[in-house]
């Protein structure tokens, strides 16, 4: 019993980076913009979030500011993606890859410029858990779900909110139509460009936040490579979750469990660490192979819309 609680206590915060990045991917994707720069935007978020928080004092409050600035920085990158793909109609994949490299490079560069090369890496406070009165007393659920830090709560609320917006509001109906058939949306009087701008920027902001969470949760220090492929897995997660917020959340739980399992195995077996570290990726591959056939992908995912193109949609 205690083992399970311990495991889940670790696994649930482990979901955060996956969920935020994958929901961000989902958000842009539902409007038809396939962002592939997660890994880069998350690295940028991690670096910017850490640096802002560190320079302001490295406390809980500055961590919150750090998260917000990280989101803003990533959103700015998202706007570049939106502009280049909707207005200039460049290939989404190519721009996304460019942004990935830019994000990785900027993250590293900013850290060098602000901190420089130091013998002892600077540290910020990690986020404290905030037990929710009464609810945290419930056996099993209490310590695992209701005794977590603020971003974990945000992750759950966000997923619920996204579900509500997408499926229970007029805005969501419009947004989904842009990803399904932009020409139909356009002919119905919806601005495809505007929807894509918003969805891409907000999606990117979530990715930046997901990245910024990592140093604030795990060690309080930033290192290059801190994202460790979580961004790429977020793309897989969007597919595994069928581009639906509720299943993305479920899928993230699975990935987080794999990650924690891999971590625990590292200390207890003779299997090479490098091999164990491939676990989440192999799991993603296996899951994709079984689930992918049935997932519904937005029909216009990754395709730009040109109103005057005479090619049938």
């Amino acid at each position: 019993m205690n083992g399970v609680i311990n495991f889940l206590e670790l696994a649930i915060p482990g979901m955060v980076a996956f969920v935020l990045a994958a929901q961000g991917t989902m958000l842009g994707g539902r409007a038809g913009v396939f962002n592939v720069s997660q890994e880069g935007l998350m690295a940028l978020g991690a670096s910017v979030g850490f640096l802002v928080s560190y320079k302001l004092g490295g406390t809980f409050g500055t961590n919150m500011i750090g998260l917000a600035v990280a989101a803003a920085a990533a959103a700015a990158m998202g706007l570049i993606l939106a502009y280049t793909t909707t207005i200039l109609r460049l290939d989404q994949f190519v721009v996304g890859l460019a942004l990935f490299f830019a994000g990785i490079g900027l993250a590293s560069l900013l850290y060098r410029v602000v901190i420089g090369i130091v013998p002892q890496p600077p540290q910020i406070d990690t986020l404290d858990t905030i037990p929710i009165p009464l609810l945290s007393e419930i056996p099993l659920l209490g310590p695992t779900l209701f005794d977590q830090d603020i971003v974990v709560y945000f992750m759950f609320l966000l997923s619920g909110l996204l579900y509500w917006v997408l499926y229970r509001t007029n805005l969501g109906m419009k947004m989904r139509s842009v990803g399904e058939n932009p020409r139909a949306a356009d002919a119905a009087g919806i601005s495809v460009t505007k929807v894509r701008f918003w969805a891409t920027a907000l999606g990117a902001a979530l990715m930046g936040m997901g990245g910024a969470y990592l140093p604030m949760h795990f060690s309080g220090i930033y290192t290059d490579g801190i994202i460790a492929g979580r961004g790429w897995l977020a793309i897989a997660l969007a597919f595994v979750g069928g581009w639906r917020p509720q299943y993305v959340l479920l899928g993230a739980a699975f990935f987080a469990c794999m990650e924690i399992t891999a971590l625990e195995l590292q200390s207890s077996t003779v299997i090479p660490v490098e091999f164990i570290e491939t676990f989440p990726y192999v799991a993603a591959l296996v899951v994709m192979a079984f689930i992918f056939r049935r997932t519904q992908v937005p029909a216009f995912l990754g395709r730009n819309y040109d109103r005057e193109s005479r090619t049938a949609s």
Partner: protein
Amino acid sequence: MTTKTQAVGPSSDGPLLQMSNVVKRFGTVVALNGVDFSVDRGEVHGLLGGNGAGKTTLMNCLYGLYRPDSGSIVFEGKPLTIRAPRDAIRYGIGMVHQNFLQVDTYTVTENIVLGTQVSSFPRFDLRAARKKVMDLAERYGLNVDPDKRVADLPVGVRQRVEILKALYRDARLLILDEPTTNLTPQEVDALFDSLRAIVDAGTSIILITHKIRESMTVCDRLTVMRDGQRVETLVRRETTPRELANLMVGDQAVIERVAVAVGETEPESDTVEDKAPKEPSTTKSADAESASDDEASAATTDVEAAEEAGVEEKPADAEPASADETAADTDAEAQQDAPAGPIRLRVEGIDVPGDQGAVAVHGCDLTVVSGQVLGIAGVAGNGQVELAEALAGVRRPSAGRLSVNGVDLTGRPVRDWLAAGVTYVPEDRHRDGILTTATIADNLLLGSQRTSRFSRRGVVRWRAVRRTASELITRYSVRASGHSAVAGTLSGGNIQRVILARAFSREPDVLILHNPTRGLDIGSTQFVYDRIREVTASGAAVVLISEDLDELLYLADHIVVLYNGRVVGRVPRQQADRFQLGRLMAGAEAEGREDDRP
């Protein structure tokens, strides 16, 4: 129903819409060359022209899908700048596109309200919208189930959804782009009734069409376009189909050919493709009691039109087979009397699965011999696509055997089918027929890339490809800047010409044609018919799958009727009776189809 103006013809307030000197270029191609166009209040205005005449382009400019390079639009007395469909909708202009612009996964109601204001607080409530949709549907006779997913609906119903979408937004000008293309005769009839009701309620309608007879049935005035220019605007009562054909085609030689070939099957000098008024007029006589005044007047006009055309009058209840038999006397007779040639295509008891896995075609047996055209009739969605793909070797049947020239090809790769001389012209041009981002030359090469003519030791001989492509472009009158033009930039009719050029130039032994003339103008349609005659004369077997009975009666030696994936009737052409065929198509009289009007 409303107190809006009901006048036909010029109203005292001036025209509802005035477009002046509209110019639109796509790259170097001038699609619209200074077009003036005006529509009055409360009229159905036909916009008539052949493929690539610029009808749709002009309307896309009005609806904000294209930005014209110059020109002005005055609507309801106010000059407008329309930058996007959003603007057009706000000003009261609605458009029903030929390829419906709907979100497949949404319900009817969701598609209709999409883009309008719906409150999401405290909860997202579509009930009021749904009620309004149902009211409109009832008022204009546009029956739909508001809760169905549009992907599950037949074409006729999806079209009603599009019309309701415009009406829901209170459109005062409704544009319909080739609305009858995919409809059964009964649906066309119902649609025209609905259009009348809409016009009577005060909305003006622009009907884009290339079918002369259809425009003579419903339109008050007609504007003819050709080569991106307005040729003439006429009042329907003062014109004749022949005059319209003249204006549309503008080439006397073509008109003569069309008249000679089609004139005998058709009382009007119109394309054989047009079946609309024939069937409708019979439906009218059937339920004459319930016929409204509108229907009666429409029927009268139909006869008037026929008289004006200077052809023999053909009452609604005339012996149907007679006209077709006279057609048989022409050039097809020789084929019928000729002894049956070698069997080209033999189909034995095939079951073909549909996309969802369920069996779409059950136990189908067919034989087509050299020099014959086998027609397959049926209402869309009764297994035609699956059967066509199975006959072309693209879709693997789950049971039964297929052989070409005596060689069993069941389950063999498409490459073997191509090598065996099978060629396929699919129904869905954009999806299955053409690479929209590739050049015309690439598209024409497709499927022949392994032949010695175009390849040497696995390397494509591009010079030969380009030379052949240029020849075919000329021969098949494809309107394009050259063989390097990107196929997706062509108009629908020209894309079909490329596909047909590819199919016929391969000199096939077996040719599978699925709705080959859909959406083509008179000249193009006749051109296709000529080619079909040519390949059968040289010994090919043709399977012609068509929803157009006139086309089948004109070309096919035998007609097979497909209903619910089963062959429900086989008739030699001489014994074919279009009413009997119609009953078979509708499921042997017993069960009515849900997309029929109640």
